């Protein structure tokens, strides 16, 4: 059978590499994994049809090394590369180098990536396209007068942001006019240090927004559709931990308008393949374009669950030049989906990363329960990479049922050896403000700050379980192989003695 590609190299690791390999499998396309020294025994390596060693554990020497990735693809006869998320996924050099090497990059064109990587330029382009932006400067300010005028127009509080920004660096919230000059200077200094570019601009500061993003997908034939929204307001340290769809905040009317604007953004950027248009949604129901992520997102599975699509399969199809699948023109949202990110981090100690070897690993199962995982029993969680281990996704007929199903599934998801934030997320979703849909980006700050975990209440049962486990540990030790090379534990085959099928039965009859 002719497949869309001969072979696909997956330039990533862990759960997203496994996810992409799964999509390759369902299309009948062989896949090649790449792995660093830290990932010799990793799940993603074993999951692929072939694998290529690309260097030492530090990302610069392996997963971020474009030369090695291109070499690995050519050496194994691949004709396409899927970048996943993170690592090289938003580096415009990768699509360029792929094109030079005659490989198909499964993602957007380099130009669209470059445009969206520059916050000031993309803002100007989107303003021209008629997409609502946070009131403020169109571009960067030439001098302080420009900042003062823009702040006056937008009204305080305002926010100073770095053009090349991200991760909260080069960002300042300014409440009063007299603080403006210092804030601009400070933001410039920080931006220069962090990004080597001191361009900053000014926007109105939106307090208590929701983070609502739209999935879009475009083919090479000029077709572009949105695949509805995801609400990702539950964040800690600017990192999403719980995502859901549909958003409780959107009416069908606003949804249609935002979706149409998301498509407008993608078209204005000359976008092809899957991408995500992020909006801030304020308390009055206004929304503003924030940025576009030019890759598959961590939280894409919730969209797949409510729409019955496979976004990674569709990425591969459109990269092969096929028009968008028919189903994308008649999508509906069925039920409600939630995703919880399972990080190796301590939810009870300020989300401190946690390292170790997984000594127990069992996933929840059941209708509407999906686990996208990059780990298994025995996996080592090291300090080399992002601590995401897996994503737990549930799908149910309603939001309320989805919340209950997620809490049960988190409790059934047993991972021992590293800390996780399972309980923290359960407590978020059990909070009445979450249940009532009052999910804003400051949710954790406002509602979880004074959360107290009464660990003592669980202590005695935990000690009882440790005693039970001690008994098992002792039993396992006594089962250890004796000097005859046989297990010391009696096996039924030893107890039964010599026998022959049917021999005694005849005697008895």
């Amino acid at each position, binding site marked *: 059978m002719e497949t869309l590609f001969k072979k696909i190299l997956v330039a990533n690791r862990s759960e997203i590499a496994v996810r992409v390999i799964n999509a390759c499998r369902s299309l009948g396309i062989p896949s090649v994994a790449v792995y660093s020294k830290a990932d010799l025994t990793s799940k993603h390596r074993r999951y692929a049809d072939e694998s290529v060693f690309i260097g030492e554990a530090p990302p610069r020497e392996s997963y971020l090394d474009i030369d090695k990735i291109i070499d690995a693809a050519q050496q194994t006869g691949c004709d396409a590369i899927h970048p996943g998320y993170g690592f090289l996924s938003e580096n415009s050099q990768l699509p360029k180098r792929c094109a030079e090497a005659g490989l198909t990059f499964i993602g957007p064109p380099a130009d669209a990536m470059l445009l969206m990587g520059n916050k000031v330029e993309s803002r100007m382009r989107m303003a021209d396209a008629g997409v609502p932006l946070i009131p403020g400067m169109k571009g960067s300010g030439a001098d302080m007068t420009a900042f003062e005028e823009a702040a006056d127009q937008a009204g305080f509080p305002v926010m100073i942001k770095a053009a090349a920004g991200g991760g909260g660096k080069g960002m300042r919230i300014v409440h009063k006019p007299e603080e403006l000059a210092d804030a601009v200077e400070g933001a410039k200094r920080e931006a220069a240090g962090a990004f080597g570019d001191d361009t900053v601009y000014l926007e109105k500061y939106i307090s208590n927004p929701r983070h609502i993003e739209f999935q879009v997908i475009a083919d090479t034939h000029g077709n572009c559709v949105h695949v509805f929204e995801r609400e990702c307001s539950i964040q800690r340290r600017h990192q999403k931990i719980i995502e859901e769809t549909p958003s409780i905040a959107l009416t069908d009317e606003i949804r249609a308008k935002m979706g149409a604007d998301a498509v407008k953004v993608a078209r204005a950027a000359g976008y092809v393949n899957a991408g995500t248009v992020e909006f801030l949604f304020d308390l009055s129901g206004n929304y503003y374009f924030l940025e576009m992520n030019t890759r598959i997102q961590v939280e894409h599975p919730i969209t797949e669950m409510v729409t019955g699509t496979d976004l990674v399969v569709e990425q591969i199809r459109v990269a092969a030049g096929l028009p968008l699948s028919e189903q994308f023109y008649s999508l509906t949202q069925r039920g409600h989906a939630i995703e919880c990110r399972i990080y190796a981090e301590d939810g009870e100690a300020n989300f401190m*990363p946690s390292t170790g070897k997984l000594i127990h690993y069992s996933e929840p199962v059941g209708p509407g329960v999906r686990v996208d995982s990059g780990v298994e029993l025995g996996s080592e969680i090291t300090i080399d990479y992002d601590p995401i281990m897996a994503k737990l996704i549930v799908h149910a007929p309603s939001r309320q049922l989805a919340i209950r199903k997620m809490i049960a599934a988190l409790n059934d998801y047993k991972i021992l050896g590293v800390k996780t934030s399972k309980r923290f997320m359960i407590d978020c979703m059990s909070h009445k403000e979450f249940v009532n849909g009052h999910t804003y980006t400051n949710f954790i700050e406002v509602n979880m700050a004074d959360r107290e975990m009464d660990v003592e209440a669980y202590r*005695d049962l935990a000690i009882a379980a440790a005693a039970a*486990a001690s008994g098992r540990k002792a039993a396992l030790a006594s089962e250890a192989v004796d000097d005859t090379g046989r297990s010391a534990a009696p096996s039924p085959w030893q107890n039964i003695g010599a026998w022959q099928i049917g021999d005694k039965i005849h005697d008895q009859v």
Partner: protein
Amino acid sequence: MTRYDFLYDGEPYEATVEREGEILHVTVGERTFQLRPAGDNLYVADVNGRRTVVAAAFNKDVCHVDVDSVLLDIREASEESFAGAGDHAAEKDKIFAPMPGKIVKIMVEVGQEIAEKQAMVIVEAMKMENQVVSKAAGKVKAVNFKAGDQVDTETPIIELDIEEQK
């Protein structure tokens, strides 16, 4: 009946296990729990009329336990563990990095009075910055590293004179 000794958060506890068929009756302090083994490392327990599945498995002498998604580490009590070997929990007068990494910032200086749970140092590992806080109130005696240094988990970053020295 089998007796086991454990340490939790530095405090000693004992548990006795009585087996009745497949059910384990485990007594800890005043409470007795019925645990039914339910596959590798899993036990079904009835707590206040509600069924819950507890996971418990040993890594060397530490039993990692998940009860209702609350994660607890129960240490086997032995002479070694009483001495605090391999664990710095008992050394309240020393600040260690939680994992190997790079020091981003030292937030105190020698001679400074500090409170319990005061932020002492920021260590970067796994692309994230982690604050390390003091385990007791006291006065900073020594600062052994500076920002930019690599640290392991065995060398104290900061040493304190603490008030409630036992």
